[in-house]
């Protein structure tokens, strides 16, 4: 009987588990192995090359550029989108004029395909007749090629990501705020606490688990988001907007360099695994006091 029950459990799990292994665990391990192998060629099979792919990666300026870009991208998108999300949630959780419209306006970017909105943003940034240019003209500002200039391209890409993400994160803060006992606010009011004091000493600690959940998602997204790069800049100008996943896509599917692509994937996986471990061991403990 017990053996039969065990068999039942495994039968129920089998379809999902097979697919998870086939498309998550197996490729992760295969990638690690491939990263020590050469790229197979029509006339030569893949052979073990040790750390050659990694050595090539260390010598590849584009890889370092992508890594640097990605770190800047993460450093800008994470705090800004999370901060804006919190502000948005605090606003639309209350009795503000036009609350329904505000909620809709903030959340709309989340349901739009990144690829579609990237097209629209592309126009905003277009020199000589784009929207930013027209606004700039009103104030007599000089013409600016936002996506074509190395100094501003990454910033322009980052702005789109923040715009896309803030409303999504707002939802989680909104959910958390609505779960907070209203009597806390009444008590604070009776005590004569200021709004800022109430936020800092009551709301912020209570929102901590949400903040951590949102942060983890923001970090993962910072390493996964590339749709807009494909549409708006293709990594250019001069690799100024190449992010790790985009570099991986180019190495894997434009240059068809499998071994090298595997090494880049391992770096990306290591970044994601670090996020997972930090969340698991450090942040989780701090979130529940």
């Amino acid at each position, binding site marked *: 009987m017990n053996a039969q*029950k065990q068999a039942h459990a495994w039968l129920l799990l089998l379809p999902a588990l097979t697919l998870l292994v086939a498309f998550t665990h197996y490729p992760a391990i295969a990638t690690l192995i491939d990263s020590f192998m050469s790229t197979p060629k029509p006339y030569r099979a893949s052979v073990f090359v040790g750390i050659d792919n990694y050595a090539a990666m260390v010598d590849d300026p584009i890889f370092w550029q992508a890594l640097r870009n990605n770190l800047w991208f993460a450093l800008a998108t994470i705090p800004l989108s999370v901060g804006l999300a919190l502000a948005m949630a605090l606003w639309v959780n209350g009795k503000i004029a036009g609350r329904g419209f505000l909620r809709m306006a903030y959340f709309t970017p989340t349901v739009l395909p990144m690829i579609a909105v990237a097209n629209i943003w592309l126009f905003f940034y277009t020199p000589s007749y784009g929207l930013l240019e027209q606004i700039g003209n009103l104030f007599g500002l000089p013409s600016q090629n936002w996506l074509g200039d190395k100094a501003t391209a990454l910033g322009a890409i980052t702005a789109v990501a923040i715009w896309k993400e803030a409303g999504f994160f707002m939802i989680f803060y909104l959910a958390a705020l609505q779960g907070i006992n209203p009597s806390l606010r009444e008590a604070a009011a009776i005590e004569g606490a200021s709004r800022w004091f109430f936020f800092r000493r009551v709301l912020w600690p209570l929102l901590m688990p949400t903040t951590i959940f949102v942060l983890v998602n923001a970090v993962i997204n910072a390493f996964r988001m590339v749709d807009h790069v494909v549409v708006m800049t293709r990594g250019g100008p001069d690799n100024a907007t190449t992010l790790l996943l985009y570099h991986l896509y180019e190495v894997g599917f434009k240059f068809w360099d499998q071994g090298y692509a595997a090494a880049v*994937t391992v770096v990306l996986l290591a970044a*994601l695994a670090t996020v997972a471990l930090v969340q698991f061991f450090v942040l989780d403990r701090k979130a529940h006091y």
Partner: protein
Amino acid sequence: MADAIALRQANPAGQWLDTLAAWGLAILWILPLAYAVWTAFHPAEFSAKFSLTAPLTLENFARAWEAAPFARYFLNTTLLVSLILGSQLLLCTLAAYAFVRYEFRGKNVVFALVLVQLMIMPDVLLVENYKTMSRLGLIDTLFGIGLPYFASAFAIFLLRQTFKGIPKELVEAATMEGASTLQILWRVYVPLAKPVYVAFALVSVSYHWNNFLWPLVVTNSVNSRPLTVGLQVFASADQGIDWSIITAATLLTAAPLLLAFLLFQRQFVQSFMRAGIK
């Protein structure tokens, strides 16, 4: 803030500033969409010129529709999204049920293995998954786009949490009546988890309707391209296409989700909330 009035800093100026900032941000957030609507519904010469007297037109949509096989792309995306959602609901329900109803050896290890996918989504492993797809002969098929997503760790996690909260008494009562294990799943667990299914469905549909990189890699013909990839191919095809047509095509791509969102805003927001909290 709701009861800010009750707090000491209930000065009208602060309130007023809050409202102003909130509206400023909202306008900034809605601007790209508003701009797209403007351009798509006006003749090309008004694509960067804002005049109240500009004539309205549907011409851009008609031209976009003719310029690329959007009907096919719509069909592909709809099939793809349904295929993925259907498989996810079925496979993940079974898996979540196994985790809740049975004690078996290695249960915790297996569950931990499931959770790995929350961090490492199939789209990061695209080179290796592409190789698997080409071995299976699934390149350039809708099935090939969907397959890596059929088992969702997120759905398993979400359903497991929900199933765990279902009172044991109900299950015992059903057992007394002679219901089999699968009957209990179908008659007790699934109906009680309905709100969670709806929430997950909305999140999954909007994710896969909008997904781009993996479909881009796997597809290479009109037969299997979803809307997002179709739109990208269309917008970068040649320089002869003007902005009005591109924005019209962009709106076409986003329209079904956008309309659904505008009609069922509350449900959408609550779905994302529900999916996030648990």
